[in-house]
């Protein structure tokens, strides 16, 4: 019984018993069954709170538009053809079938749906901050689908969110990648193909030195960056031993002769299950980090235990160690121009994203905020303005690179044939300050259409006409 064992209250001592009747627990936890991506219209059951799923036309075409593909340049006066929710053709000489639902893209800019690699939208709980390692908790368990923030993000062209555990713990919870299928039940919003992931955190938030413990409470270990590293190494050492236990069990099962008693499987530990998945490369690590020294520390720990950090989050000093990040095969997900809000954010510079990209790091720009998520395209533009990133590089920072960091770049992130039709349609260049999103499409379904929703303009018009309402106003 250790202080950080979540099952300390209910210990079981399992001696070397031989068991004959145990069911065969999977060596590794079974992933939840394949999720239904396209549920029947169940949400709201019946009645006024029901949510009809937007139709998915057999064929849809966005014609005569400026198409910013994020992977193969920009196509003027082009057409995107969508069939059964997937991109079927992109180009200037695409013929549009007679039965296609056509969206006239004249004067419009079409981009891949925006992917926010760092969000806490939709989570009913963010930090299980009572222990510094909580790899067993799952954001997927605590999602709620109908916060108004989701709708506002959709209105900003966002189609995919990486919903992360908070940064209170050295190893936080398992993240959830969702598509913003607004109005549908939560299970239908999960990004079915996204590999599992997890949140790590380093530095001040984990040390909790900015937040003294409450009266009567003890300060939580670790209190220094030394302790953070120790905790990580200890956790992965335990996970390695746990994996060895299971391997020994597997070997014993194989070696067992007919009349031998069946060996007992080790006690299943959900905390260590997740860490074993990290070691085995099936769970992606997204690590909150600020300072270059702690970034190097984490990359070293990962190397020692044989895993890769999929994305360093925030990574405000990433420009100092861009080569090391690149060599480790890690991505970097940062703010455009957010700095000096605490000591470890002191050395941040707005050139960070572009500088890291220059050294070959796959960089994304994230929101970490329901508000900023509504205008991530403006954040991407700052990488051009400050750091001189190319237009396509800047666009990748909110689309394809984020998709790569989340392990979903095979499915989304650029406008390419075969990818899921997640698309934002802007009324002007997405990096121009006054441009805004007119339609947001997910899997070929229009989930946001500015013409059909109660926008602030419409609210203000009504206000002029008579009774006021705050229904569509700001929080």
């Amino acid at each position, binding site marked *: 019984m250790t202080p950080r064992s*979540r099952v300390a209250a209910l210990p079981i001592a*399992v001696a070397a018993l031989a068991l004959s009747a145990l069911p065969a627990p999977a060596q590794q936890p079974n992933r939840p069954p394949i999720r239904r991506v396209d549920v029947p219209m169940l949400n709201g*059951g019946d009645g006024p709170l029901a949510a009809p799923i937007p139709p998915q036309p057999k064929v849809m075409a966005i014609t005569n538009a400026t198409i910013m593909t994020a992977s193969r340049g920009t196509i003027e006066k082009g057409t995107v053809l969508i069939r059964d929710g997937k991109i079927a053709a992109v180009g200037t000489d695409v013929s549009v079938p007679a039965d296609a639902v056509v969206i006239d893209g004249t004067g419009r800019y079409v981009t891949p749906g925006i992917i926010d690699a760092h969000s806490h939208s939709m989570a009913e709980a963010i930090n299980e901050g009572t222990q510094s390692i909580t790899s067993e908790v799952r954001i997927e*368990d605590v999602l709620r689908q109908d916060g108004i923030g989701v*709708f506002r993000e959709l209105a900003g062209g966002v189609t995919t969110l990486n919903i992360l555990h908070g940064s209170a713990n050295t190893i936080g919870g398992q993240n959830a990648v969702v598509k913003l299928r607004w*109005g549908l039940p*939560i299970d239908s919003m999960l990004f079915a193909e996204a590999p599992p992931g997890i949140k790590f955190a380093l530095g001040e938030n984990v040390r909790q030195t900015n937040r003294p413990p*409450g009266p009567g409470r003890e300060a939580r270990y670790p209190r220094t960056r030394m302790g953070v590293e120790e905790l990580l190494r200890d956790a992965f050492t335990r996970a390695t031993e746990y994996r060895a236990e299971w391997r020994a069990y597997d070997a014993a099962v194989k070696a067992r002769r007919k009349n031998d008693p069946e060996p007992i499987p080790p006690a299943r530990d959900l905390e260590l299950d997740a860490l074993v998945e990290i070691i085995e490369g099936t769970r992606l690590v997204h690590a909150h980090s600020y300072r270059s020294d702690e970034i190097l520390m984490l990359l070293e720990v990962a190397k020692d235990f044989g895993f890769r950090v999929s994305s360093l989050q925030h990574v405000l000093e990433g420009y100092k160690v861009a080569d090391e990040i690149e060599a480790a095969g890690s991505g970097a997900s940062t703010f455009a121009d957010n700095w000096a809000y605490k000591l470890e954010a002191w050395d941040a510079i707005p050139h960070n994203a572009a500088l890291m990209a220059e050294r070959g790091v796959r960089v994304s720009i994230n929101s970490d905020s329901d508000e900023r998520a509504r205008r991530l395209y403006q954040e991407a533009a700052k990488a051009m303005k400050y750091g001189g990133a190319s237009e396509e590089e800047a666009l990748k920072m909110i689309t394809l690179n984020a998709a790569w960091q989340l392990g979903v770049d095979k499915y989304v992130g650029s406008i390419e044939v075969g990818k899921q039709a997640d698309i934002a349609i802007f009324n002007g260049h997405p990096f121009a300050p006054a441009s805004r999103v007119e339609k947001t499409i997910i899997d070929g379904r229009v989930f946001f259409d500015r013409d059909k*929703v109660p926008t602030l303009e419409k609210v203000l018009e009504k206000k002029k006409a008579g009774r006021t309402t705050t229904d569509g106003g700001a929080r």
Partner: protein
Amino acid sequence: MTAFGARTLLASAVVLATASPGWAQEGTWALVNVRIHPVSGPVIERGTIVIRNGLIAAVGADVTAPADARVLDLSGREVAPGIIDLASTIGGSPAPAPPGRGPGGAAQNADAIPAGLDPSLMATDGLKLSEADLRGAREAGITAILVAPSRGAFRGRSALIPTRASVAADQAIKAPAALQMGFEGVSGQYPATLLGVIAYERQTLYDAQRYALVAERYRTNPRGLARPAFDPGLEALVPAVRRELPVFFAASEENEIRRAVRIAGEFDLDLTVVGATEGFRALDALAGRAAVVSVNFPKASEVTGWSYRLTRSAELPDSAAADRAARAAIEGNAAALARSGVRFALGTGGARPGELLANVRKAIAAGLPRETALEALTIRPAELVGLGEALGTIEVGKIANLVVTDRGDLLGDSSRVRDVFIDGEHYEVAPARPASRGAATSAARLGGSWTMTINTPQGAQEVSMTVQQSGSEFSGSMTSMFGTTEFSDGQIDGRTVSWSMVLDMGGNAMTITYQGEVDGTRMTGTATLGQFGTAPFTAEKRP
């Protein structure tokens, strides 16, 4: 009968099988000339129920009162099985301090299992129920309640307790009745949040599965094996992971229901969802499951999907209309569950016992079949705790828990509970003082505009109504898809109102009579549509 005597008798199964326990009412009753709703069969218009030793000894139209019976003439009254409330809050454990306030419990005793994480708690341990609460339940026709620890992930085990005065643990009808689970964390220690709670539940259930198997292995052949450590918490969970004890999981919102169903699925638990006020949004998840549906209706603006609704149409929503529509869905929850074949009981779930029947009537007005509602108050809850053979209907051999009403049956719009029998023990209920009768000022105030929804067999129909009230009489007009029709015969009797009108339906005249009960700015009731049967309605006064 002393408590000592009761324990002595309970100690022997042989005695139990042949004689009633010491606390059972030994008197014999004959309830005569009463309209009987047995639930197990058709209504007996005028019959007799004989109660002996706390059990129903005879029931029927031709039953004669035994010579030794105390005869209760219930002419004009109706009797139904006593209500069983599996979502009662009476006797629930006091809530631990909410997270983040004050010093946590962790510092006090590191080894103590905090409240809310100890499944070994038994509701019968130190059972002490407030007499006022028990009386309140009886007056609402509730004859048995599930006493359950009320907060936590693993709250403990509940017991079904009769609502007799001075009830004691040895009178429990069933204990443990269910393992009670929920989603609340512990202040200041793991698991503090929903994230931790669900992970903790999973890990602990895995631990319990393993504990059960290891214990079983040791029980069958201990030789040569180190004995496993005894753990009272996991021990208490073993029957639940073996499906021998139902799991009552508190889950009201759509996502809570989905979470509970997912966890139960992962561990093959015998799940009953308790609360389920947004069950109508999770019909797919609840399919094939059981529920105790609370009639403690949530506010429209708190229901999942409310903010989605606000973004659906370019037209700004009319808040009042949206609220009404959402309320209809909320009150129609039980009806939606019934339509999709979910097996469910109805319970208070935080509503006052006195509100139970009033809210069940709203659920009926929103489309819940009346028979289903009566079953959901009686036999369904009995079945959900494995007592379908002992409780829940008026049949020979069952426990004599009965509720007697006047002015109509239990679910009638103006019926009142007058008597209850619990284990054959008779309680008279003084009718609520008719505060609204007599004085003209306290009679229902009907004057104004109303929006009414009539649930006809052809579907819901919106009607608007304008009323002019003069004392206990009123007149007005109603506008529907058939046009506007006047009426002038309205009568107000306390909270009960009635009126009628003749509708011209393509040359055929149809008389519609309305009978309703007014509660402030709300009215529920029944419309009789000529020879076409009846239709429940709800109405709301417009401000």
